[in-house]
Structures are given as C-alpha cells and as structure tokens.
C-alpha cells in the first residue's frame, strides 16, 4: 500500500468534505457515494460500496439545519474504506466481516468530525467580523476574498477528521481485528443487516409523518408475505 492511497484519500476527504457545507451540497458527500468513489479510486470498489451501504442510513435523520452539526459521516465513509484497504494489505483480512470491523471502529470517531466542523465555523466568525470592516470601507473585493477563504477552514476540518479516523482506526484494528474477525463472521448476516435496520428505525423515528409507523408496518408485512408466497 503506497503513499498514493493516502494522498488520494486526503484529496477526497477535502473535496467531498467541502460538499457537506461549503460548496454545492450535491450529496456526493453521502456515504453511499463517497465510500464507493473512494473504493473505486483505491482499487477496492466492492468494499467501498459495502461501507456506504452499512453507513448510509445511520445519521441520515440528523438534518443540517441552523446550528445543528451532524457527525461527519463523509469522513467516516472515506476513512473506513481506507481502513478496509489497510486491513487487507497488512493482515490479509477482507470481505464483509473486515468491512464491518472497519465501519465499527470508524463510526464513533465520526463524533470528532462534529468538533472539527464546529471549530471551522468558529474560525469563520472572525471572517464575518473582518468583512464588516471591509463593508464599511466599501471594499467588495476583500469581502469576496474573506468569504472564499472560509472554504480553507472547512477543507482543513475534513482532512483532520479523516486523518484522525484513519490513524486511530489503524492503531485499534491492528491488534483487535485478528481477535474479533471470527466472531464477526459467526454473526452471519445479523450484524451486517443490523446497521440498515437501525438506520431505518432512526429515519422512521425522525421523519415527522402522522401515520408513518402504520405505513411502514403495512409495507413491511405486505412485502414479507409476497416474498413468502413466491
């Protein structure tokens, strides 16, 4: 595993991280897109897709509204994909159980992304104050410059979060993965599907629809019966 894998991951952490808040917000930062893209560039597309599938729904219900900052699922997705490559190259562990371990280690570290994002936004406070002075002086070019330099804070936040996830994740997985991989394999599909089911429950709990539980229940039972009768 060469330095190019880390450089690629770093570039993606910055570019896709900007999509979360600073630029475009086109959803390329969602785990289901970010992880497969990372996996494709690192030569492990299947692992990337699996990381994205496990993680997509978990924090989807947390809306980026006002001052609310959700955990950084973009960097968790990118970092977990690089961790999957690391496990493969260092310990020869691959497949869904290895991917599950990487995601399990990366998810709690997503909380660090919240802290980094908050720091970036706090750093932008000073840009807003400087812009007030520039506006009073009629300096519109300075306002533009101050505004664009805010992207630097968000880029740094994404990069630092991804670095932390990869560094701490590698340190944890190197001794723990060989011990836990057998137990993860033993759980079969239960652990794998539990991520999606928890994500679905979180979404169901946060989507504010009056007859949501009824709709979900009917759709669930009807589909299950159709598949059973098939």
């Amino acid at each position, binding site marked *: 595993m060469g330095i190019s894998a880390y450089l690629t991951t770093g570039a993606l952490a910055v570019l896709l991280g900007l999509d979360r808040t600073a630029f475009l917000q086109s*959803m390329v930062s969602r785990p289901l897109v970010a992880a497969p893209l990372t996996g494709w560039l690192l030569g492990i597309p299947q692992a990337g897709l699996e990381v994205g599938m496990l993680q997509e*729904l978990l924090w989807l219900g947390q809306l980026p509204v006002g001052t609310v900052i959700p955990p950084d699922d973009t960097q968790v997705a990118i970092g977990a994909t690089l961790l999957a490559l690391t496990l493969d190259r260092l310990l020869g562990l691959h497949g869904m159980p290895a991917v599950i371990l990487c995601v399990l280690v990366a998810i709690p570290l997503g909380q660090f992304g919240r802290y980094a994002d908050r720091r970036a936004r706090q750093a932008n406070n000073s840009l807003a104050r400087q812009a007030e002075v520039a506006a009073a002086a009629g300096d*519109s070019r300075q306002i533009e410059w101050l505004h664009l330099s805010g992207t630097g804070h968000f880029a740094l936040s994404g990069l630092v979060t991804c670095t932390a996830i990869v560094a701490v994740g590698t340190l944890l997985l190197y001794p723990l993965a060989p011990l836990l991989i057998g137990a*993860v394999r033993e759980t079969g599909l239960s652990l794998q599907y*539990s991520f999606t089911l928890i994500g679905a429950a979180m979404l169901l709990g946060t989507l504010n629809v009056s007859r949501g539980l009824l709709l979900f229940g009917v*759709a669930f039972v009807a589909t299950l019966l159709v598949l059973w009768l098939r």
Partner: protein
Amino acid sequence: MTPSPVPWLVLLRGCGRSFLLQASWNFERMQNLGFCYQLLPGLRRLYGATPPAEVLQRYTGYFNTHPFFAPWVAGTILRLEEQRLSGAAPPIDGADFQKMVMAPYAAIGDALFWGALRPLAAVVGLFLSVQGIIWAPLVMLILFNVPHLLCRCCGWLLGYLQELRSAETLQRLRLPDAAVWLKEGTIILLGVLCAMLAVRGCEHQELDALWGLVLLPVVLLFAGLARRGVTSLAMVVITTVSLLGLALVSQ
C-alpha cells in the same frame, strides 16, 4: 442614474456563485458573506466597480435560509435594487424583504430537501445497492440533484424576473404538501427494504421467511427509542456488543 438591466452573463455568474453560499458559514452571521458574494456581480453592474459602503453593509448582515432557496431571495433583491436605482420606488426595501422571507423559505427548504428528498434519494440508492446494482449511487445523485439544481437556478432567475411575485410562484408549487408525500413514499420504501433484508436473513439461517416478522417490532422499538433521543451510535454499540457476545459464547 438609470441603470441598464443586469445582463444574462452577470446573472449566470450570480447563479454560479450561489453554489458557494455557505463557504464561510459562521455562527454569528451564518450565510451573510455567501449571500453578499452572490449579489456582488449584479451590484457591480448596477453601482459600478465599487458598490457604496451602505449597500455592502446592507447585505453583510445576518442571513440564514435554506441554501437552495437563497437564490430566490437574492434574485428578488437584485431586481429591487435595480428599481431603487432607477428612481421607481420599490414596493419594499431589499433588506426588509430579506428579513421577511428567509425564515419561511428555510422552513420550506428544510422540510422538502433535507427532510424529504434527501432520505428518499438515499433509500432508493440503498434499495438498488442491495439488489447489487452498481449504478445505485448515480441514481441517488440524479434523483436529488435534478430538483436541487432546478430550485437554485430557476429560483435565481424567477426571483430576478418576477421580483415579489416569485414568492407567490413558490406558494403555488405547494412544496410542503410535496414534502409530506415524499416522506410517505420514503417510509413505504423503507418498509419494503427492511422486509427484503428480513427474508434474506431468514433464508441465510435456513428459517421460514415468516420468521422475518419478528424484526418488525424490533425496528418499531428502535424507532420509538430514536424518538426518545437515543442516538444511532448507542443502538449500534448495544446491538454489536449483543451479537458479538452471542457469537463469542457460541464459538
């Protein structure tokens, strides 16, 4: 001074700049600099290379709305500024219009894009991924970004061309109703997805598919916990520890 209308090229620049609205998002003034940044090409066209300090100060104050609806506000304000400069008294001051609409536009945008369309696109993407369709992420991106880009670009143009009437246009679109329908569609698709996973799990364990019904109360219980503020991280930890513990005991 009678200003010439803002040319299309300048409008196009303003539209492009709307994608950077939140580049300097901050806790004190939120999207203020991004909003001013989007207006600046138009303001330079109206006021010359250096817009007066009072105009800049007017649009660097507090501003916060849904990022996809900010162009609707900015387009209208540009037209109001144009009217003011031409001597025709605008029906409302630009800064007052900004304060008046940013909260309702934010409510519409948050409910429609973050609360409804984003979950729907994600669940559709996940549903296709589970079927093994490799293009699922692309489908998800298209599903979200066609309405997203239409909202940003058309909103900016409608705001400029229709000025205050753009708010009526927005009202006629009945977007809050659309948000509710999209949320209901998401929930139905979520039910289908969970049932499919339950059946697959049963088949893997060589159990009758009807055993999958056991998962329904479990998901509903977790949904109840989510409503009471239990985080997904806590649920993942509890579930993982339980499943791994059982696996280690049975090994």
